[in-house]
């Protein structure tokens, strides 16, 4: 099924992105090519829906990705005519097109200079600020990107997307405690986001298994990871990612032995006793094999999981089974 042009195309597979950008000529043809500036549009082109403009925005992104610059420019032109040159989102989209078409570092510097210029005129232009951070990160200037992001979060601390980006940047540098902190801020803003809970669990697990982590703090991370994965499962029935993480963590804890339970420090986070961990492990195994079985037989109502996730879960279960049967 072709993806809808109404959803942001960031997470699409290459095939889906290609299909989407191939829709572009049809979508461009279907709607009137002449967009009129605000006072005339009501009179001349009839009613308009917000979907149309959202569609253009998303088409720009996926067309740039697939290299169809012509269609991207056509979409951008219509957006510019409709919303004007100084609209913040349009400015950000124009920057995006320029970034995509830049051939060398010099041209990228040029784009960056333009962003700086816009920002010196209006420091609260959030779409441009975000583009600038993304560009800095893409050019490998991570420390600049981080400081710009921290600055953005200083005056806009409720931007969950920016916190999430900050966490990703820290993670790419191996700074686990900072990444976890930023992800926790996302959770403060979106406490019901089950995927963010699972993501935080994954971060904790990564931090716990990173080389050179003290045993005590590693166990704390593990305990926290169990809690996060459990919460994600609590928020979402049959959440493959949550059960996968839970199984991963409990299996590791069980294979490391029961010494964990004895270590009762005064810290607020201690690992649950071995019995509980075993039961969690069993639960996760049962649920995972349930999910894998159902989606292997393509049962109705179990087709929402992605193929890659199912394959990973099957591998995890397989690894678990082979040592016991031997």
């Amino acid at each position, binding site marked *: 099924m072709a993806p809808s042009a109404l959803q942001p195309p960031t997470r699409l597979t290459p095939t889906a992105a290609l299909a989407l950008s191939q829709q572009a000529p049809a979508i461009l043809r279907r709607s009137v090519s002449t967009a009129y500036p605000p006072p005339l549009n009501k009179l001349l082109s009839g009613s308009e829906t917000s979907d149309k403009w959202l569609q253009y925005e998303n088409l720009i992104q996926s067309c740039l990705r697939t290299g169809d610059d012509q269609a991207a420019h056509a979409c951008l032109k219509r957006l510019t005519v409709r919303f004007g040159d100084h609209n913040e989102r349009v400015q950000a989209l124009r920057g995006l097109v320029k970034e995509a078409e830049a051939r060398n570092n010099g041209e990228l510097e040029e784009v960056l200079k333009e962003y700086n210029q816009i920002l010196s005129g209006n420091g609260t232009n959030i779409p441009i600020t975000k583009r600038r951070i993304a560009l800095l990160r893409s050019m490998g200037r991570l420390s600049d990107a981080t400081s710009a992001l921290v600055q953005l979060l200083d005056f806009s601390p409720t931007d969950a997307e920016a916190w999430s*980006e900050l966490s990703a940047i820290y993670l790419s540098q191996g700074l686990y405690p900072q990444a976890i902190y930023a992800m926790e801020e996302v959770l403060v803003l979106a406490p019901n986001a089950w995927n*963010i809970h699972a993501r935080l669990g994954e971060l904790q697990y990564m931090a716990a298994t990173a080389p050179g982590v003290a045993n005590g703090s590693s166990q704390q991370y593990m305990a926290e990871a169990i809690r996060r994965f459990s919460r994600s499962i609590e928020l*979402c*029935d049959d959440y493959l990612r949550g059960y996968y993480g839970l199984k991963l963590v409990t299996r590791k804890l069980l294979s490391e032995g029961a010494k964990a339970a004895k270590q009762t420090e005064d810290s607020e986070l201690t690992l649950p006793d071995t019995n509980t961990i075993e039961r969690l492990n069993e639960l996760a195994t049962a649920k995972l094999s349930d999910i894998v079985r159902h989606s292997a037989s393509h049962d109705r109502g179990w087709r929402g999981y992605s193929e890659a996730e199912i394959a990973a879960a099957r591998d995890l279960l397989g690894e678990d089974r082979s040592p016991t049967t031997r």
Partner: protein
Amino acid sequence: MALLSKTITAFGGLLLAHACYSAREHTTLLSLRAATAATLTSSPTVAASLPLDIIIETIISTFIILVGLVLGTRPLRPIEWRVWAGKIEREGEEGFTDNSGAVDRDFVGNPFSLLESRPNFVDIRKQRKEFADWIQKGDSLQAQ
């Protein structure tokens, strides 16, 4: 299901129309009789109440229409957070279709996935490069 509910609703509508028509016929007949009776004897008319079968038909047809409409509604959305979230994860688009099989217009999958994909911070050059690599890989696979 859609056809069944529509048939039932149409049948109920037919019955209701029939009951209405009968009631109208009955009252016309009654008033006509009353008029002729008035000219003949000038005595007060009989009480103008509908016959029982018309009343019963009206009530039953209303219920049949109700049943048809209720059968035709789309499946109810889960109201518990974890059930709703689980439905999104487990069934994907399939769980959010109307009776004709089209995906709901407001279905977005997991609404929090934007916090992980971060469309405003997209690294377009990397995506472009990855896509070009993917195309090249596909071409070289075809060439083999």
